[in-house]
């Protein structure tokens, strides 16, 4: 009778009473680091496939059906959308909303990251914590708070302005102010993300580079342009890409604060898709609206990530 005692050693299972020829490939397969890594990632991959890939593919399929979802109409929904005045306005508004919000978030994030980085280590933690607060509050909740501040009739901001002798501002009832208000809230919410990413990047810049530049007589601006920015290019590219995608898909802020009004002038893709798909009952048209930016963002992502990889290789 074969020995049936099993012992675990560094190289794997030993002493199993089976023919070594059958087990060896399996042992080798399980022994590989890549296999273990794959098995450990599998639950996550299944979740992503079920909750991200399948819905994404289904929405692409949905966007190519007619309203009753009985006929395949190819790109008919996209063609139709492009012919509508309101949709053209929505494209323009979403671009203004996303680009200006990301620009300001990046600028504010960069400036505050520098300010915090230059604080004594003891005080940094306190400031970091406080400045992250907007980012950790659930967006729906903070948008509601902002809506109260901008309330068309009883705005807290207007109350203060009036007390100080200024005239009221039509925060949400005039298109220009309404656009400004939703962008402001988006910047308020998103700037801490840039702050924390840039702060991490700043900490990783070797101090010797600044010391060498100082010896060469570089001033603060020159150090920033010639050392800090090049060293942060990758992280800037990635945060901008990530933020662009998230901001282009924003829903909560606009839906809660303006609902797309006045006169459709604050609608972004997500709120317009909601109006067409859920409120008006045209799910395929809503799906087409929400997918409209997908190819443009995908191309942008390819170029940005290619640049990141290239710079990574250069540094490596």
């Amino acid at each position, binding site marked *: 009778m074969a020995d049936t005692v099993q012992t675990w050693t560094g190289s794997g299972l030993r002493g199993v009473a089976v023919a070594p020829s059958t087990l060896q490939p399996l042992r080798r397969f399980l022994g590989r680091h890549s296999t273990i890594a794959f098995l450990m990632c599998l639950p996550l991959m299944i979740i992503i496939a079920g909750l991200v890939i399948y819905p994404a593919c289904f929405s692409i399929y949905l966007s190519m059906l007619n309203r009753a979802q009985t006929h395949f109409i190819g790109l008919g929904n996209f063609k139709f959308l492009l012919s*509508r005045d309101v949709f053209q306005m929505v494209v323009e508004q979403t671009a203004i909303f996303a680009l200006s919000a990301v620009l300001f978030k990046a600028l504010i994030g960069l400036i505050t990251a520098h300010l915090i980085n230059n604080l004594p280590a003891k005080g940094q933690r306190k400031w970091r914590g406080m400045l992250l607060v907007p980012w950790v509050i659930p967006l729906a909740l903070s948008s509601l708070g902002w809506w109260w501040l901008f309330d*068309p*009739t009883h705005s807290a901001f207007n109350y203060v302005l009036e007390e100080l002798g200024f005239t009221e501002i*039509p925060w949400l*009832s005039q298109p220009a102010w309404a656009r400004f208000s939703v962008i402001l809230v988006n910047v308020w919410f998103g700037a801490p993300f840039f702050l924390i990413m840039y702060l991490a990047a700043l900490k990783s810049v070797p101090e010797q580079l600044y010391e060498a530049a100082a010896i060469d007589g570089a001033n603060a601006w020159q150090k920033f342009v010639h050392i800090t920015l090049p060293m942060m290019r990758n992280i800037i590219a990635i945060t901008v890409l990530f933020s662009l995608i998230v901001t282009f898909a924003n829903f909560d802020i606009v839906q809660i604060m303006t*609902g797309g009004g006045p006169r459709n002038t604050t609608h972004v893709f997500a709120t317009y898709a909601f109006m067409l798909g859920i409120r*008006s*009952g045209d799910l395929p048209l809503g799906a087409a609206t929400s997918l409209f930016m997908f190819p443009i963002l995908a191309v942008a992502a390819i170029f940005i990530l290619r640049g990141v990889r290239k710079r990574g290789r250069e540094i490596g």
Partner: protein
Amino acid sequence: MTVTLLPAQSRKVSRRSVLKSAALGSAAVLASPYVKGAYAAGSLSLGVWDHWVPGANKALTALCDEWGAKNNCEVKIDYITSQGEKDKLTAAAEAQAGTGHDIMSHRDWNIRIHAEVLEPLNDVADGLIKQYGPISPVAEYLAKIKGTWRGIPTTVGSQVKPCCSRISLYKEHAGIDVQDLFPADESKWDKAKIDTWTWDTYLTSAEKLYKAGYPVGLPMGQTSDAVDWVGALFNSFGVVMVDGKDNIKINSDETRQAMEYLKKLMAVNPPEVYAWDDAGNNRWLISGKGSSIMNPPSAWAVAKRDNPSVAADCWTHPMPKGPKGRFVGQLPQFYGLWSFSKNKQAAKDLLLYISQKSSVAQLVEASSGYDLPSFKTMYDLDTWKKVEPPVGTVYGYPPRGDEQTSIAGAPARSEVGAQIYNQAINTVMVAKFTQGNEKLDDVIKWAENELEGTLRA
């Protein structure tokens, strides 16, 4: 090129075959009067609009429990809020998945939107019409799709949006006694007097109230309160956006007349009305700043709690009359029975039970008169006469006298109407002209283009 596919909901059993059987079934039932099943049994689940009036849900639960006990059927109700359109999202998800509650309440256009997966209810609707007389034309327009009833109008949450005016402010600043004009007894209504309550009178009084520092508050955003009152005004001026045969009719003298009128009316409204949601006008009235809004009695009910002196000064009464009549915006809700329900007969029995006048009376009472059945013969319920303060304040809430119900988007076929209504084409038109100061011809041209887009539906 188009390729025919099977609908998403019916990959195993063709939807066509289900609908065909259902249509044949309903035709057979139609041939004979509705007969209640002797023994429903089993269980039923309902997804129902969550009422904002405290205690109103309890009245519906009690009615369902009562019916369940009599019929040995377990009834489970989930109350789903309409905040953030959660009820519509739930309905969309259930329709898409082909599973969920047996009965679902649907607001405004949702019966039209889900018609393909809703069970025909001609037997229940026709039985009720036989019992209680004609049903509201708006309810019929929204729920009777191609000759088949796909929903039964609810009492819970169904509403109209007439004027709710401050008695003392109208008397003092506009010289109009709204209680005298519309006393809490229809038999005392004087036609000659009521005929003076026109949109011209409304404008004159609004101008006086604006000067006195108490403007009327008429929302001009893109939510239902705004769409409904502008829809009613358009109807009373004879404006048709799209007719029943897909003809775009917005470029008309009637439209120009209504828009010019609105230019004057919006000038005496607070400028923030363009950003109001459905609660904006309520807050305006409750704050004491506003003299009149167009709304169900929810504003009055909240004022009763938050600002009792304002509530005691409110009077709900019919809308002003225009050249083509007196119209009020109506927004009914419906119960729909999903075609995938496992207990259809029991569901129909329950719907019939909660639509009886005795049940309706309990629901109206529990909501202090807010809930409005779709049968005019039920407008004699006591609740509307006795609710206070002041006594009879909501007597004029159900459409009475020459007031007719209307909905923006009609008379276009309902697929088109749903787009017109939900995209708020009428209020965006008005806002472009009155707030954006765009030329009327340009606004009409814009509307024609948008309406042409809705015809794709």
